[in-house]
């Protein structure tokens, strides 16, 4: 039950904004966001726990709508350094009240150009 990310790819000019969505068909316990630059390992951006919170990290923020089982990552005033593949990872809320293991989406490729 892999989360679905959209768009699959996006090209931005420096300074433009972007939104990356991550959705699940199942109730979610948490959403994790990571960025992976070409040839490097993924790097953690943020975790959002159920409760509809929003978090921020520099000019990158995210929201988690547990009713819609969806999270969105917002990149504002994009910089060249934002280029990479963004992965969301989701933990589903199990009937036992505990969380499943983390499952990653297929990624969104972001390219920021001059």
């Amino acid at each position, binding site marked *: 039950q*892999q989360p679905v990310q959209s768009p699959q790819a996006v090209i931005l000019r420096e300074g433009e904004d972007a939104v990356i969505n991550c959705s699940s068909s199942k109730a979610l316990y*948490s959403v*994790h966001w*990571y960025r992976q630059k070409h040839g*490097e*390992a*993924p*790097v*953690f951006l943020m*975790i959002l*726990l159920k409760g509809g919170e929003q978090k921020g990290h520099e000019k990158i923020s995210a929201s988690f709508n547990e009713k819609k089982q969806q999270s969105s990552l917002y990149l504002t005033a994009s910089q060249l350094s934002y280029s990479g593949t963004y*992965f969301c*990872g989701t*933990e589903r809320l199990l009937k036992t009240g505990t*969380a499943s*293991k*983390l*499952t*990653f*989406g*297929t*990624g969104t490729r972001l390219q920021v150009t001059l």
Partner: protein
Amino acid sequence: GAGVSQSPSNKVTEKGKDVELRCDPISGHTALYWYRQRLGQGLEFLIYFQGNSAPDKSGLPSDRFSAERTGESVSTLTIQRTQQEDSAVYLCASSINRVSEQFFGPGTRLTVL
């Protein structure tokens, strides 16, 4: 203050041979994960260790794949009778506990000829 390390960084092997990949997690991290990433693809979960609990092996693609972890330290991922489809980057990650940030190692690039 070392991060997660993996060895070897690159491994080229012939089809049918066994390979062993090693992961040294960050000291004190109870959770350890193995992922496979094929070229241009996402992160495919393989196996998860949490403390002394039984590992979650639900992501292992076949019985040719196995992994061990000694306590809360080193983990090895073994692939027996390698196939060309096993070619990928194998990433290891550790975290303080299950719901925390995962710190990824640099990966082992496996090429099966």
